[in-house]
C-alpha cells in the first residue's frame, strides 16, 4: 500500500490534523498537497490581492514615469514599475494554480477586479499629484511592503514563499531608489522641501492604514488571525505597524520632516509607539472602491481590457490552430 492511498483513506479530521502537524513542523505545503478548503481560500484571497496590488500599484507611479526629473530617475522609476508588473505576473501565476481546482483562472481574477470583488491595497487608491509623491511611494510604501512581506518569507505555502524571496529583494532596491529621491529633495531648495512635506502629509494616514486595523473589531473580519494559525503569516497588523514606525520615524525626523500627528511618540514603558489611529470607516470606503482615484485607475484597466479584446481573441485563435 502506498502512502498516497493510506492518506486518502483518512477522515477529513485526520487529514486536517496531519496538515496542521506539517505546517507546525515548518514543512512547506506544495500545490498538489492536500489542504483544507479554508486554507486554499485564504491563500487565494491573499495572493491574488497581493498580485493585483502590484499591478494596480504601478499606476500611481506610472503617472510620474515620463516626468521623472532626470535621465537617471527616469530609468530608475521605469525599472521599478517594470519590476512591479513582473511581481504581479509571478504572484498571479501562484494564485492561478490554487484557483484551478475551483475552475477559475486569470480571466476571473480580472473580472473580479473590475467588479470590485477583488480588492487592492488602500494606498493605490490615492492621489499622487507631485513628484514628491513618487518619492514617498517608493520610500515608504515599498518600505511598508518590505516589512509586511518579509514576515511571509517563511510562509507555509511553498510557491508563495519562494516567489517572495525574489520579490522582497527587489522591494529593497525600490526603497533605496525612493530614499535617494527623498534625500535629494530634502537637501534641495525650500520649494522641494515643501513639496516633500506636503507629500508626507498626504500619505501618512494611508501608511497607517497599509497594515490594516489593530484587531478584527474595526473591520469585522479575522483573516489575519486565521493566517497566523495557518502559518501563512507570523505577525499581527499592529506588530508590523510598530516595526514600520521604529524603522522609519527616526529617519523621517532626521530629515527635518514633520509627521502630521502631534501625538506620536515612543512610550518607554510599553516599548510601543503611541499614535493617532486611522479612520477605519474611511479605510473601508477606500478599499471598496471609493477612494479618490479608485475608479479612475480601474477605468484605465477596464478600458484597455476592452480596447484590446481583439488582441486576446486573435491570440486565442492562433493557439487553437
Amino acid at each position: 500500500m502506498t502512502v498516497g492511498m493510506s492518506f486518502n483513506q483518512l477522515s477529513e479530521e485526520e487529514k486536517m490534523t496531519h496538515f496542521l502537524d506539517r505546517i507546525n513542523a515548518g514543512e512547506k505545503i506544495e500545490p498538489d498537497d492536500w489542504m483544507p478548503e479554508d486554507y486554499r481560500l485564504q491563500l487565494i484571497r491573499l495572493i491574488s490581492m497581493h498580485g493585483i496590488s502590484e499591478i494596480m500599484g504601478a499606476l500611481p507611479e506610472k503617472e510620474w514615469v515620463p516626468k521623472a526629473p532626470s535621465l537617471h530617475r527616469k530609468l530608475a522609476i521605469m525599472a521599478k514599475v517594470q519590476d512591479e508588473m513582473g511581481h504581479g505576473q509571478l504572484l498571479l501565476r501562484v494564485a492561478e494554480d490554487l484557483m484551478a481546482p475551483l475552475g477559475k483562472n486569470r480571466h476571473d481574477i480580472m473580472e473580479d477586479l473590475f467588479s470590485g470583488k477583488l480588492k487592492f491595497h488602500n494606498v493605490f487608491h490615492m492621489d499622487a499629484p507631485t513628484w514628491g509623491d513618487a518619492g514617498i511611494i517608493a520610500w515608504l510604501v515599498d518600505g511598508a511592503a518590505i516589512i509586511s512581506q518579509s514576515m511571509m518569507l517563511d510562509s507555509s505555502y511553498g510557491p508563495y514563499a519562494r516567489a517572495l524571496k525574489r520579490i522582497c529583494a527587489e522591494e529593497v532596491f525600490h526603497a533605496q531608489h525612493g530614499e535617494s529621491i527623498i534625500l535629494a529633495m530634502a537637501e534641495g531648495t525650500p520649494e522641494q522641501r515643501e513639496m516633500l512635506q506636503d507629500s508626507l502629509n498626504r500619505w501618512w494616514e494611508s501608511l497607517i492604514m497599509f497594515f490594516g486595523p489593530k484587531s478584527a473589531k474595526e473591520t469585522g473580519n479575522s483573516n489575519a488571525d486565521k493566517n497566523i494559525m495557518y502559518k501563512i503569516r507570523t505577525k499581527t497588523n499592529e506588530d508590523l505597524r510598530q516595526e514600520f514606525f521604529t524603522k522609519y520615524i527616526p529617519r523621517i525626523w532626521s530629515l527635518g520632516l514633520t509627521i502630521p500627528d502631534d501625538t506620536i511618540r515612543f512610550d518607554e514603558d510599553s516599548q510601543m509607539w503611541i499614535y493617532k489611529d486611522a479612520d477605519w470607516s474611511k479605510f473601508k470606503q477606500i478599499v471598496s472602491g471609493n477612494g479618490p482615484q479608485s475608479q479612475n485607475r480601474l477605468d484605465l484597466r477596464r478600458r484597455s481590457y476592452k480596447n484590446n479584446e481583439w488582441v486576446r481573441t486573435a491570440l486565442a485563435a492562433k493557439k487553437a490552430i
Partner: protein
Amino acid sequence: MSELKSSMIDSVMDALGDVKDPEIASVSILDLGMVHEVDVTDDKVRISVLPTFSGCPALHIIERDIKKAIENVEGITSAEVKFVFTPSWTTDRITPEGRESLKEFGISPPPANHVMGEPWEIDCPYCGSTYVTMENIFGPTACRSILYCKSCKNPFEAMKPVADMG
C-alpha cells in the same frame, strides 16, 4: 608586481566580494563577473566595472556600495569606479559560485557558451526538472525571464543568456 601591491589587490577583491547586486541579495558583483580590472597605485584604487545591461538604474548604488566597501581596506584612501562597456559583460562571466547562489534564489543560471539566436535549455532551479514552460522572455528585471515548472508547479526566473555578438 610588488608583494605589497598584490596583497592590497587581494584585500580590495575581498572587499568587493561583499558588494551585492542591489536586486539579488545573495550574489556579489564578483560572482556576476562584473569586475573587469582592479588597479592599485600607492593608496589609490581604480576599479572598472562592466554593467550587466546598458540601462541599469542600479549603477549609482553599486558605485556607492563599492566605495563604502573599499573605505575599510587598510592602506587605501581613495577609490575610483569606472563603468566600461569593453569588454562586453556576458553571462559566461558568472562564476560557478554565482550560478549556485542564483539557483538558491530561484533564478536559473544561463547556459554556458550560448550563441545568440540559438534556443537554450533551462532547468527548474528548485527541482531540476526540464519540464518547464517559458511564460515570458522578459521578467521583473530586464536581464531575466519568467518560467513555470510543470513538475513542482513553481514559477521561477532564468537569466537571459547574453553573449558577445562580435
